[in-house]
């Protein structure tokens, strides 16, 4: 008996020493991987963290497009789509639907939080210079705000977590993280994003604004001023929203006065089809001569760093067969090399069909909006939304150069959205004519001059900032001579070869606002902003029919889910706009 007790105590003793000894005994850093404590040593490590965050962000591309477009009215499911996608389209999402889970957003948000905390430590320990810290901290901070804005748009009430958690499931602990209503969330986001110390893009020549693998990285990162403009627009703070949008619109107004100066984010012409992005015909009046290898369509195919690409796009991330992640958008959209899960809705075709182009010199007007012809293709008898596929499928041959080389781009924001949202803010701020001008035939078109002296015309200089634009153009013979900063601005409908829209005076505010949202559908269909646009206006007007009727029309005309139209309308009319917050 005694002997057995002795052995037992010896074993216990050994155990205890073993446990206490473990810490020192096994606390050896792995030699082939980086431990967290060794990660953030200098600014290059910080850059790696930023790139890592954006790499992971690209994994959300298909989710972003699906949530923002399939829930709205321009994109529809195909017969190939599974039940989960169909639920999104018909607004019958159940809690088990993986597309509806906010978890992937939170995983990235927690990564952002982690990076932000480490950046703060680095700054404290002088491992980064003040300026370097400001740029990188603000970037990741703004991206987190962007992600939260997306969560708010799709889930309504969400927990606002700003500390790093090791386990994403802790977010669900409502005791620690109460859900904030969308409106309160927006306040938090405005406060945080406003407080970021650096709001410009990374300066040229810094490590994060370089050319790598054939891509200039300048447009990879979220544009903080656009984000702030959006946040203020959601908050109905039109003055602040317009101010931030205006700052982005003036990005090119510096340095040498050349084509770039006049057209960068200004929707200005440069007498070059690769930059102008018009809807045009090689012989006006002959509909069969629609230009597709240049002009409007080419903006979706142009290379990073090319002039036309630079002046049009604000935020784009590249998919390339040479690096991860894989292009999830080809799987979503393409019938070749993909699964063809979504297609343009009949509703968006009808929208394009309802437009008539400008009367040409050769008489008559083409009875549809040619942006529809260039945004979609019929491949193998099936309608395909093409914008995300033009780097993969050749427009002329209708097939990929190489099926396995799945390059492409994730388009997030461009100058038309910038101008339309500025116009939305300006319109609500009472500047109807200015808003109408950006939408139709430009500033000088909205303020035409009766003669050749344009001193008092072509401008809104009497307005306060940010509504004071100078678009004076005296022509070659006008005296005095003017070529002002905005003289090349031509307006979104004008660029697309569409006539101006006449607005009834009595109801100009709402007519212009509805027109702007419709124009964004025609111009930016499938680019991932439709649901947000509809929801923002529906909330602002307290008019659920603004969103419900459009979704109803899509479903009604859809051959696949027309049975769900009335139920979806009733749900949206009851302001039940959000997805279940569950994972």
């Amino acid at each position, binding site marked *: 008996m005694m002997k057995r007790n002795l052995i037992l105590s010896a074993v216990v003793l050994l155990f205890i020493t073993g446990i206490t000894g473990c810490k020192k005994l096994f606390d050896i850093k792995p030699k082939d991987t980086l431990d967290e404590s060794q990660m953030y040593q200098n600014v290059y490590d910080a850059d790696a963290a930023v790139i890592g965050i954006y790499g992971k962000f690209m994994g959300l591309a298909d989710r972003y497009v699906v949530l923002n477009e399939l829930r709205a009215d321009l994109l529809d499911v195909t017969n190939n789509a599974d039940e989960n996608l169909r639920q999104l389209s018909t607004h019958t999402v159940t809690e088990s639907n993986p597309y509806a889970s906010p978890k992937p957003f939170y995983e990235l948000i927690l990564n952002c939080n982690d990076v932000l905390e480490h950046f703060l430590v680095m700054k404290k320990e002088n491992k980064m210079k003040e300026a370097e810290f400001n740029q990188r901290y603000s970037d990741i901070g703004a991206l987190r705000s962007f992600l939260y804005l997306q969560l708010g748009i799709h889930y309504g009430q969400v927990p606002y977590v700003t500390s790093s958690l090791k386990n994403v499931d802790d977010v669900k602990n409502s005791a620690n993280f109460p859900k904030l209503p969308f409106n309160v969330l927006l306040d938090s986001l405005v406060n945080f994003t406003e407080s970021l110390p650096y709001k410009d893009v990374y300066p040229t020549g810094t490590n994060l604004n370089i050319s790598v693998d054939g891509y200039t990285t300048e447009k990879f990162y979220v544009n903080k001023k656009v984000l702030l403009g959006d946040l203020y627009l959601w908050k109905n703070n039109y003055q602040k929203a317009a101010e931030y949008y205006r700052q982005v619109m003036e990005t090119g107004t510096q340095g040498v006065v050349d084509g770039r100066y006049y057209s960068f984010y200004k929707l200005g012409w440069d007498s070059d089809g690769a930059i102008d992005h018009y809807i045009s015909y090689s012989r006006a*009046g002959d509909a069969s001569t629609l230009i597709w290898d240049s002009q409007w369509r080419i903006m979706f195919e142009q290379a990073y760093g090319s002039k036309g690409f630079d002046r049009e796009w604000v935020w784009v991330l590249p998919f390339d067969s040479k690096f991860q992640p894989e292009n999830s958008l080809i799987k979503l959209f393409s019938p070749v090399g993909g699964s063809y899960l979504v297609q343009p809705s009949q509703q968006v075709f009808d929208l394009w069909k309802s437009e*008539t182009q400008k009367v040409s010199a*050769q008489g*008559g007007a083409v009875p549809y909006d040619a942006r529809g012809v260039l945004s979609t293709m019929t491949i193998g008898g099936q309608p395909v939304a093409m914008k995300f596929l033009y780097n993969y499928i050749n427009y002329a041959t209708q097939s990929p150069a190489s099926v396995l080389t799945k390059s492409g781009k994730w388009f997030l924001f461009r100058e038309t959205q910038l101008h339309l949202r500025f116009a939305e803010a300006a319109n609500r701020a009472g500047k109807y004519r200015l808003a109408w001008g950006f939408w139709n035939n430009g500033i000088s078109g909205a303020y035409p001059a009766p003669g050749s002296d344009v001193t008092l015309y072509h401008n809104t200089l009497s307005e306060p900032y940010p509504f004071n634009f100078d678009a004076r153009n005296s022509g070659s013979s006008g005296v005095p001579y003017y070529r002002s900063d905005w003289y090349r601005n031509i307006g979104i409908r004008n660029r697309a070869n569409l006539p101006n829209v006449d607005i009834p005076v009595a109801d100009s505010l709402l007519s212009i606002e509805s027109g702007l949202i419709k124009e964004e559908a025609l111009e930016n269909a499938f680019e991932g902003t439709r649901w947000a646009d509809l929801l923002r206006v529906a909330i602002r007007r307290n008019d659920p029919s603004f969103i419900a009727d459009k979704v109803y029309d899509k479903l009604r005309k859809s051959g696949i889910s027309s049975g769900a139209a009335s139920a979806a309308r009733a749900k949206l009319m009851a302001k039940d706009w959000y997805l279940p917050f569950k994972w």
Partner: protein
Amino acid sequence: MISRFKWFSSFAACLAILLLNSCSKATDDHNSVTDPSLNKNLLELIKSNPQLSTFAKYLTQTGYDQVIASTKDYTVFAPSNTAIATLDATVINDPVKLKKFVGNHITAQLCNTNSVTVTKRLLMLSGKYNNMLRAKIELANITTANQYASNGLLQITDNMLPALDNCWEFLNNNSNAAAKQKNFMLSLFRNVYDVTNAIVTGVNPITGDPIYQAGTDSIYTNLFWNKVHDLRNESKQYTLFMLADGTWDSEVAKFLPYYVTNTTDSNTLVTSWNVVKDFAVDTVYDPATIPDTVLSKFGTKLPVEKSAIVKTIKTSNGIVYIMNKLNVQPASKFKTYLIQGENYAGYLVNRRSNTYFREKFNPVTGNNYTDVLVYNHGVSSFWLRYDIEEVPSIKYKAYWVAVNDFILAVPPAVPLTFTQKLAPGLPTATTFPYTTVTEKNYNEVYIGEFTNSKYSPVYNIYLVAAATTVKETNPLMCDYIKLVPSL
């Protein structure tokens, strides 16, 4: 204590050994084939049935016994001895015919009477098809259904499934086929250029085109197969109408004036062709349910009077009706031509750079349309040519839709006043005068009547601009031209 444990463990060991031993027998019982019919293949199953001895004998004679004894799956529709007793001696004594006959009772699919709930067309080993619906296949009833063997199903029937001629074989071989129409259809064999099986002997050094061995670059084929329906095709089903000789003559005579040519022979040939091309349709109409009007492949209405059906012949791929009356109306035979302005086949001089294909909206029809505009072409009497095919020698009413919405780019916007004309046959034809193209007129404009005096395999019609080089007065503009038969 110890002894009890030892005893228990040896007992357990014994039990385990016992269980293991008995296992093999237990599985044997559960998995072994107990259904005796599954131990037999189809041939054995047929041979074991004295009712099917005649059919079994024919199987052995034709060699099909080896086929249905194989491991592939088949369904055999076996006629009982009573059903097969009436088989024609010419079939029994002709090995080829007998093989076809027996093969017509076997299909390489599994056909259960319970699962064939809609008519199913079965490909038999004879190469012909039989229609099956539940317990009925063609005219035979399945009396003993769904007997299974190791390699398929056996269906015992109360009637034979004779290997009938198909529609073309009937026409070719059977004395019941109406002679004049038959002779005409058999006269339609031509050598047609087809290089599918051609032998290449060299390459033309100048053009790079292949040179084919003489006689291999064409196939000898019938126009009816190519242009109407290939009545030899077993996988489809057709209805063929044949006119008794007198009716054929009068029907051809009725249409002779509409296909005037230079000689009597070609007049008859063209007319006969145009009469006969409407007589086969790719739908099978049963005598009981044939409608009073059948629409031909070319849109001609065939008025079918049941009392005019002289004979009905069932074929392996459809049905043939011998008729003593089939009074096709000329008005139904002749079609309206709709010529799209932008689909021109030729021009006086190439002015593509002055030619606009415009897509526009027509408020009268509510539809979009495409038209053609040739502007500033600088050619006096410029014309566009349109080709239409196989035009009968009849009178036509001509219409066009031409919308003059042509507005000068320079303000004040003034619509141009210009004229154009339609010239049937030749660009210089003065059949119609120049007509002013009215401003914003989206309706059809009646131009007038013209007569095509001779049947034309290809007929040219011209849209001619004004005889001037002034761009404001010589544009050419057209949505479509419509030619309506006027009898």
